[in-house]
């Protein structure tokens, strides 16, 4: 089963554009990433630029509305993610516990929905969604 480990750094919601983690934190994180890879559980990972460089698109009233970051109302934002393949939720938690995260960081783990989790009608509908993902990747 797959899990996303979502990194939520406190303060990142108001970080200025171009904010980067410091070299020591990156070095520690690289070592951790390597551990995940050597254990054969790491499928993908990425870090994200701060929300001040992003935008939010809301759909209130059925019309898309674009708001440039930072987002005053956001209390928690993503800083990055890992996608891992493990044998249980407990194992995903165990890996998250090993992360050399700082005191202001939180990791949320979430199981990735797989086709097998869905009823048939959702499977059919989801097949079209996957095609969109595939178009991006190919």
């Amino acid at each position, binding site marked *: 089963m797959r899990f996303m480990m979502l990194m939520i750094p406190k303060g990142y919601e108001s970080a200025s554009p171009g904010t980067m983690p410091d070299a020591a934190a990156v070095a520690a994180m690289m070592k*951790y990433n390597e551990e995940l890879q050597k254990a054969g559980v790491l*499928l993908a990972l990425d870090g994200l630029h701060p929300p001040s460089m992003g935008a939010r698109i809301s759909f209130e009233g059925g019309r898309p509305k674009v708001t440039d970051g930072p987002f005053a109302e956001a209390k928690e934002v993503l800083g990055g993610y890992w996608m891992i393949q493990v044998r*249980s939720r407990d194992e995903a938690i165990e890996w998250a516990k090993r992360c050399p995260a700082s005191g202001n960081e939180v990791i949320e783990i979430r199981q990735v929905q797989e086709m097998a989790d869905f009823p048939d009608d959702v499977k059919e509908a989801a*097949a*079209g969604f996957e095609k969109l993902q*595939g178009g991006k990747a190919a």
Partner: protein
Amino acid sequence: MTIVASIEATWRIERSKIVAALTRRVRDVGLAEEFAQEALVAALEQWPVEGVPRNPAAWLMTTAKRRAVDTFRRRAVETRVHEQLLSELEIDGEPAAPEVGSSGGDEIEDDLLRLIFIACHPILATEARVALTLRLLGGLSAAEIARAFLVAEATIAQRIVRAKRTLSEARVAFEVPQGADRASRLASVLEVVYLIFNEGYSATSGDDWMRPQLSEEALRLGRILACLLPQDPEVQGLVALMEIQASRAAARVTSTGEPVLLPDQNRARWDRLLLRRGLAALERADALGGAAGPYALQAAIAACHGRAPSAAETDWPRIAALYAVLGQVTPSPVVELNRAVAVAMALGPAAGLAIVDALQSEPRLAGYHLLPSVRGDLLARLGRDDEARAEFERAATLTRNARERAFLMARVLACGHLPRPE
């Protein structure tokens, strides 16, 4: 999450590394497993009472080593070899407080690689290698392995015990083979990993619930090997092959469990992440000069399908060329039959039929239902219905799969209804 669940999860992650490290020290994989198990028991007793140690992984490793030392002491072993063992154990059995997050580094990795090599040692029968690898590297219980292979649990348990005894009696060296031996030993490792993958991937036997686990386990092992042997192109080739094949898993069966053949698969259901990983591994195999390795070639063929946006856009000339190379590297009439199919797709049914006809007298394909099945298909496409019908009938009598037989009988009927060419 309970503390017991946490201990068990840590255990699953650390188990093979601990067994590997102990095997190097006590020279016996069965004993190593016992000591490792004792460390787990100690954790289950102590952690709920005393709290989880700062570095649970290192605690388990240290505790297992101490158990080994204690046992050797208790047994009052007198031979010099054992004294030496004991002193070795005592030196690195009592490490300074390990850093939080320290992995033990290269030494543990080397031990893990050695453990893989002995689990797949050619002195063992293939089925014993498979069982031992799943046990030692995957941490699967005999019951889980038995469930996956539809074999009695006692049979698997015996197989594992016997395999350990064989390794012990033969005093198999705990090492990464070098020199002339290396290639064949590595081939044995890759074969075992691919066997496990295929057992999970193919629909021949076993419990439906266990089988995806087997494939995932094989992939995990392959990915670990790719880190341990980053310079080996065939390891990358095997990982590429497994990732690409696994990317199709969801599209290979209908919601009612019927198999879907490659050209008919809904490509939107292919897992793009795994496909991308597979293509990346294939690139690494190529970059390491391994494009002509048997796994890399099979991965390259799978990649041709993976890259095609639709079945109609498949690069059949390239697939035909890859099969030709594969046939030179690992000559096999089955590969040649596959080449015939690719050639027929690339150049037309007549070109394919010429290759199939040359295989007609091949004794290794006698009784192989796909030979008449493929030949029937090519004949039908050439409008030679009577001959095609006879081939489909023959194929239907040869296959043991009921679904396939029904499919072939439908083709027999279709031949009768098609308009005849003049």
